[in-house]
């Protein structure tokens, strides 16, 4: 009995101490519920892993070569400009930038774009997407997302209180699937997903990760449905200048009836190979953009001045050189065309079948022909491609991204045999990747 009393006294003491310690931490739920379910992030996870294992990094989408000299010079010039270059500029976009964007894109969209009404400059295309979802999607709204999709669309829909509805691009039946052009959207399947709650459809062309460049007829099919059902269209076109094999990038906003219902998103980072500058924009009819401006002014308010000045100068230069061989918008896709070929042949050389992208930064390849014993019980509940990519980083020192990360939970198991490579890299990086693949293939064949 004495022992029990003694123990009870000890427990009471321990409980008192722990209560005293917890008095200074909050006992109620701290976080806002909108952060629930959106806390996992594939980039955070895989970037860390690639760094840890010092892998040859064909994973995250950024160039490992330098931006063109004219753009870095423009930035330095801005930095040595007067004090105004280092202070707040116009909140919705530095005047020089919105004016050069309006001038440049009016020609392409076929619509007179008002620099002050129809454009919002944001911290990367990422923030433009955030503003679009926050401003235009409400609780209960449905948003159609075409899969595979850049992964942030889904959590952004969720954070806005909306519901994501997915429709996948599917490989065409019957033919060998060799190009991103062989993945198509079924008009019937898309139409069947539209309900009275549907507010918007999100498209990404050129597409990440597949590389598909939507043809005019495909965009017309989507446009017809948007007009028929009075939907908004969010068109993520960050890779707009990167098309190969003569594929043409078409802006859905340029189709009849679409300017008034489309938000087109672009990226200075992808345009000028300077992803770390985080200058992006949304373009669209002022009556839609004004709501996005409200979100912007209550979340970020201003974007960095000098970076915007530099991107403005970049567009001025490209406006002069448009269509000529000196244009960066000609030179970059020409250079990347070769990198694309190089990576494809490395993959084919070891028996893998890549899907040739018509545009963008990325190439996906089917890995189902490779047999791997993962030996890794930690990851056994994860999708096959997630396990494969982690194994590839740890065992072979090559970093890629699992493609099922770009699919909805309901479809991810259907598409878990693909991995994504970024080929916007120096030749030396692609050579190093080829070495790894060759060695690996030799090891396999010697068994």
């Amino acid at each position, binding site marked *: 009995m004495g022992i029990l009393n003694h123990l009870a006294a000890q427990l009471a003491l321990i409980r008192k101490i722990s209560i005293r310690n917890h008095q200074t931490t909050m*006992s*109620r739920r701290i*976080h806002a519920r909108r952060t629930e379910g959106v806390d996992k992030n594939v980039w955070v996870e895989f970037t860390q892993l690639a760094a840890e294992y010092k892998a040859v990094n064909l994973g995250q989408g950024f160039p*490992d070569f330098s931006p063109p000299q004219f753009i870095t010079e423009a930035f330095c010039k801005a930095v040595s400009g007067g004090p105004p270059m280092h202070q707040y500029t116009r909140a919705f976009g530095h005047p020089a930038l919105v004016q050069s964007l309006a001038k440049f894109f009016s020609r392409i969209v076929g619509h007179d774009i008002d620099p002050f009404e129809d454009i919002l400059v944001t911290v990367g295309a990422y923030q433009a997407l955030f503003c679009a979802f926050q401003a235009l999607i409400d609780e209960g709204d449905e948003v159609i997302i075409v899969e595979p999709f850049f992964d942030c669309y889904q959590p952004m829909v969720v954070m806005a209180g909306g519901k994501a509805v997915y429709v996948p691009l599917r490989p065409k039946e019957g033919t060998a699937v060799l190009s991103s052009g062989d993945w198509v959207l079924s008009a019937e399947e898309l139409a069947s997903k539209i309900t009275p709650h549907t507010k918007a459809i999100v498209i990404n062309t050129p597409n990440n990760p597949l590389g598909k460049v939507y043809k005019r007829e495909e965009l017309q099919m989507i446009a017809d449905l948007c007009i028929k059902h009075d939907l908004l269209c969010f068109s993520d076109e960050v890779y707009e200048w990167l098309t190969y094999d003569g594929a043409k990038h078409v802006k859905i906003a340029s189709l009849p009836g679409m300017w008034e219902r489309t938000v087109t998103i672009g990226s200075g980072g992808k345009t000028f190979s300077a992803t*770390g*500058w985080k200058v992006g924009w949304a373009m669209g009819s002022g009556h839609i953009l004004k709501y996005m401006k*409200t979100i912007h002014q*209550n979340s970020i308010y201003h974007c960095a001045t*000098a970076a915007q000045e530099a991107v403005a100068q970049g567009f001025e230069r490209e406006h002069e050189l448009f269509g000529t061989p000196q244009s960066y918008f000609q030179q970059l896709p020409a250079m990347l065309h070769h990198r694309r070929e190089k990576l494809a042949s490395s993959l084919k050389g070891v028996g893998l079948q890549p899907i040739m992208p018509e545009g963008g930064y990325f190439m996906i390849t089917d890995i189902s022909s490779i047999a791997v014993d993962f030996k890794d019980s930690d990851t056994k509940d994860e999708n096959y491609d997630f396990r494969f990519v982690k194994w590839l980083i740890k065992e072979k020192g090559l970093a890629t991204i699992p493609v099922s990360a770009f699919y909805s939970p309901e479809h991810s198991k259907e598409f878990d045999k693909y991995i994504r490579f970024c080929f916007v890299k120096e030749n030396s990086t692609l050579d190093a990747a080829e070495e790894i693949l060759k060695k690996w293939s030799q090891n396999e064949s010697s068994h």
Partner: protein
Amino acid sequence: TNFNHKNVCRVAFTSLAADPSVVNLGQGFPDIPPPSYVKEALAKAVSVDRMNQYTRGFGHPPLVKALSQVYGHVYGRPIDPFKEVLVTVGGYGSLFSTMQGLVEEGDEVIIIEPFFDCYVPMVRMAGAKPVFIPLRLKSGKKSITSADWYLDPDELSSKFTSKTKAIIINTPNNPIGKILTRDELQMIADLCIKHDTLCFSDEVYEWLIYRGQQHVKIATLPGMWERTITIGSAGKTFSVTGWKLGWSIGPQHLIRHLQTVMQNTLYTCPTPLQEAVAQGLMLNMELIGQPECYFTSLAEELEGKRDRMAAIVQEAGMTPVIPEGGYFMLVDVSALNQDLSDMKTDDDDDEAYDYKFVKWMIKKKKLAAIPVTAFVSDQSTKDFEKYIRLCFIKVSNTLMLIKSYFKQCLNASFHTV
């Protein structure tokens, strides 16, 4: 998007004052040059390939490490650069990440008036209800400083309810320039602990402290680290508001929710700018205690400008409120007794005096300032409508220009014009 209210006024005034013939004393940004080493660091960063591409989402490693060192020193505690720091797009972005991460529908958030005007729309955007408590002016004083405003303890205590999620404090305060004393912070801390609430401490002007004053971080008071997010700004620290970099510092169990917001809103901040700020911080870390340290030398420079602005205002027949910190000054315009009857607009007969005064100043005198009632709720309008806000982080020439404008326009025979 119906939460936006007075915020639109500051934005509207900005466009009114954007007329190049108007001398803008309103918007809070320097026209002094930033220190040359930060500009050099930025130009240098852009010449390094890797610095032009994405960096770590929650903050560029050199920057979060520099912040951890500088603030570890200031707080007197180790700060984990990866778990207890988040880099954001300005102090503004930190406020947004904090509200979105920690505040929601059903919550109440206490805001001390006058307040930086974005707090209210941000609280509303998070679905919560703002609860206001005004700073009150001690009566009977002739010459006024920001220290003459105080928080009534009983009044403050009455604002805390079971729904209170957080209190926002801003010290040094924009627009008054008040620095909350240790006793005042302790009073707030006691209430936070008693009612188990969070504290969001906006300390973007933390280095702009004038002689005889001390900036105290509420997060250093007992029991407060665990429940406080402290916000800082590179723009205000290095006179580079156009760089739009800021940070939130706090315990991991709070910062991780801000990080979730970050990864779903803009993912990462610009790399070369973060690299340059990191270098600026490390350079000044070495210089702490020495006269060249920008953390103290900027405040010394601004104190002179503060005093010059105060003299200019007095000569013009108005009454300055001498700020203990920050780079704004409240100016009492009531002594001018300016007749504003022709500024009445049809739709807003009730418009506060300071709004009418500023509109008149812009229209008739080509001078812009910010009306201080833009920083208060409707119930406090009457207490603040005789003040306008001026900004004194300006080069000598600008101050001289202001002096001559005031001489020309705002003198005793003014209301006959």
